[in-house]
């Protein structure tokens, strides 16, 4: 969060206020500045927020007058934006910034000796990974700030099992400024450095606050699941502990085309060697390397015995770069290898089959039409193996990979071209390394609920969490129950949870101290995310329907999603200006060209 001083603008207060209730985070960033000059000056407000967050509000108070952001359908906002362009403003308040963040920036002219207050609100659902929730706050005030504070209040009805706060810029001098505590359901973190603590040296007027402030925590888990009901909405968190791992069958489909030459290929090999180190003996695996040709390591999947892992490491070490990129055939080959392994009973009956595709570019040989490749893979993958697509570097056609992954029950992830690319690949692997449940089906009282979010899942990975939410439509319901059925490592597992609805009043009241409608907002957030994801791989008629549903919810709950924009009107010396904040959407890198028509 920054509020940069431009000329004589003094930012005297930055307040980052985060309230988390049952994983749902509501963040308010307030920055106050004063123009100490004798003429009007420009004050800038700049915030890095997580890509997974939705902005819900923005306001500016200048000379006692409030300018509020208004959330509108993107097309409507676009028209307003075009008018803005004609008035000389080319606006775009949100841009991509880091790997995990997008930047919201606005600047405004304020009169001499006047004050301005900026306030940005955003919300997100914290996802559990490797056994913890992580909340990330970018801290970058640029100058010393008289009142700087971060306050995080957490309320988790299950009880907090641990809480930690770390900052990349922390020094011994700054340590006393960080407070963290938790007991039972409540957790609290604060960071309030004094002016002197902010100084990069005793006599410096520069700040050392520049980096990431991260809060991590987890909750107690007395049972596999937990149901919370507030104001007619329920949310069910499911994260069973201490289960045996289900064996997995993984085909690594690795791009070794010419563009992978050099560091990219070295990092890929480094990551594969690390992954092999962590492969459990009950797993099966194989490699399909590709450029314009396909090279399959072994004719069929092999068990991860120490001897096979050694051979695999030798194979990985000798991978060299090749020529062009044929994505279609190697992915189909991977499907075929898994089909054969199933048909010949070479892999355990209860096991997870995954294809991990890593590529840095577009297909430019063989089948090059992205739609055709997606169609071929979908058609071939009759058994529904999960396909994970890792897009390496800037030139990758991410939209193509994302759609292909989503159509095959997987996800796509970007691997950023940097010195830690091997770590990023390894990090992704560890997320999916330990499946403990398969084919999870969650059943709720059918006639008593509506608007249920996704309730069946292909896998559950150790350390993650499944979240399902919905609305209770039966006002007379006394007990709300859920049955979960899933395939475990050795047998079919069943879980049951129920909650007395009369009791939830108390819970509701307790939770209201944070903010009232969080369960409903969590439900809306989750529903919008799932609708947007489904839209990527839906057919055209379905797409429109999904878009409409997601748009209606985005407008109703005032979320800036890829379908909505926030229109911000700011004062100007001549006339008011209109700016538009859009949700940043991943796209291919732009290019410059010369051509003719």
């Amino acid at each position, binding site marked *: 969060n920054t509020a940069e001083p431009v000329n004589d603008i003094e930012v005297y207060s930055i307040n980052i206020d985060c309230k988390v209730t049952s994983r749902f985070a509501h963040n308010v960033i307030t920055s106050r500045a004063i123009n100490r000059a004798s003429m009007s000056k420009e004050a800038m407000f700049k915030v890095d927020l997580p890509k997974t967050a939705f902005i819900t509000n923005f306001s500016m108070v200048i000379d006692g007058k409030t300018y509020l952001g208004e959330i509108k359908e993107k097309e409507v906002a676009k028209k307003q934006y075009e008018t803005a362009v004609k008035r000389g403003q*080319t606006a775009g308040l949100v841009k991509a910034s880091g790997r995990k963040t997008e930047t919201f920036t606005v600047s405004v002219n304020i009169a001499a000796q006047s004050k301005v207050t900026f306030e940005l609100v955003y919300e997100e659902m914290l996802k559990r990974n490797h056994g913890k929730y992580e909340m990330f706050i970018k801290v970058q005030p640029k100058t010393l700030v008289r009142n700087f504070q971060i306050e995080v209040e957490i309320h988790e009805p299950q009880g907090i099992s641990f809480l930690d706060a770390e900052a990349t810029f922390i020094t011994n001098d700054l340590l006393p400024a960080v407070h963290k505590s938790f007991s039972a359901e409540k957790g609290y973190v604060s960071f309030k450095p004094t002016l002197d603590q902010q100084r990069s040296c005793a006599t410096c007027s520069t700040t050392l606050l520049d980096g990431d402030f991260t809060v991590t925590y987890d909750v107690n888990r007395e049972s596999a699941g937990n149901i919370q009901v507030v104001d007619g909405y329920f949310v069910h968190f499911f994260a069973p502990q201490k289960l045996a791992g289900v064996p997995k069958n993984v085909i690594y489909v690795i791009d070794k085309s010419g563009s992978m*030459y050099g560091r990219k290929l070295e990092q890929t090999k480094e990551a594969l060697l690390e992954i092999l180190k962590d492969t459990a003996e009950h797993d099966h695996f194989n490699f399909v390397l590709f450029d314009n040709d396909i090279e399959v390591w072994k004719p069929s999947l092999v068990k991860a015995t120490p001897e096979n892992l050694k051979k695999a490491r030798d194979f990985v070490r000798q991978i060299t770069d090749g020529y062009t990129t044929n994505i279609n055939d190697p992915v189909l080959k991977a499907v075929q290898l898994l089909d054969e392994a199933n048909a010949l009973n070479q892999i355990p009956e209860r096991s997870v089959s995954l294809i991990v595709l890593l590529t840095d570019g577009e297909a430019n040989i063989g089948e090059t039409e992205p739609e055709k490749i997606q169609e071929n893979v979908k058609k071939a993958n009759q058994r529904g193996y999960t396909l994970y697509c890792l897009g390496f570097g800037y030139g990758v056609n991410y939209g193509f990979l994302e759609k292909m992954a989503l159509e095959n029950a997987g996800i796509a992830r970007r691997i950023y071209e940097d010195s830690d690319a091997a770590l990023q690949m390894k990090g992704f692997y560890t997320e999916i390394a330990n499946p403990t449940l398969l084919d999870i089906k969650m059943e709720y009282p059918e006639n008593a609920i509506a608007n249920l979010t996704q309730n069946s899942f292909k896998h559950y990975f150790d350390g993650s969490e499944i979240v399902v939410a919905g609305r209770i439509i039966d006002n007379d319901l006394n007990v709300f129950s859920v049955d979960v059925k899933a395939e475990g490592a050795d047998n079919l597992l069943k879980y049951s949870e129920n909650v007395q609805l009369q009791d939830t009043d108390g819970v509701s009241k307790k939770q209201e101290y944070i903010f009232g409608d969080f369960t409903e907002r969590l439900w809306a957030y989750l529903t919008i995310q799932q609708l947007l994801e489904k839209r990527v791989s839906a057919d055209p008629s379905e797409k429109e329907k999904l878009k409409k549903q997601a748009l209606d919810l985005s407008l109703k709950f005032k979320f800036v999603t890829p379908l909505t924009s926030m229109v911000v009107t700011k004062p100007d010396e001549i006339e008011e200006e209109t700016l538009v904040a859009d949700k940043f959407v991943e796209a291919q890198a732009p*290019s410059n060209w010369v051509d003719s028509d």
Partner: protein
Amino acid sequence: PHFVINVPSQNDALCFNIQEEPGVVLNLVEDQGLGIAVNGEIIGKKKIGNNVMSNETYFGKLGFVNREMKLRIEVTTETITIMLGKNKKEYTWEKTTSVKKKGLNLVIHKKNNMTLSFGEGAKFVIILHQFLKDDPLHMDFLGFYTLDDHKFSAHVHGLLGQFFHGIDYEISNVHKTKIPDKPDATMKVKNKLLTVTRGSQKDYRSDPRKGKKVPCWFVHSNAEGLIDGTHKDYIVPDIF
């Protein structure tokens, strides 16, 4: 030829034409840091008998130089010639081919396009626009697209290269003209005020026939004021 400059920070694009006589060679990219240069030779003004049927000009030949690799590549509307030191090899647009040497990746997609990349760095796409031999107006020409612009050094220059690390501009005073949908505006760029017109150009990468419309602010007079110097400063004697 029409130039298009993407400006992601403004979620918009700039475009301009450079009008020169056939035979003139223009420097498109010059990166002394990476030792890479790209030049293009202009063709155009199709004549039937003594009558000029079209005044449009295009790029008919592109020259790529990678000094570190001692590599030169000439692309015309008929052939692709790779010169590596003293060795020379010629390919045509008639066949899908790929060429891979350490650090060079070249793929020709029959009668369509070719991609060219140097190691982990620069990547280019060349589109072949083909017409019937007896087309009264058009002749075959080439389109040139750069990818991974960020990989060039900070000193990269040339008609396209100077924009690889972004450009700041502001648009104001948008006003109607006689042509609907093509308002004029004032662009503040490099401390100058230019009159620009809203228009569009086409990106032919995904659809080589129809192209995809890209709205842009058109800068008049051979991009004077937008580019460093004048367009004449980018005329070079030879394709290499």
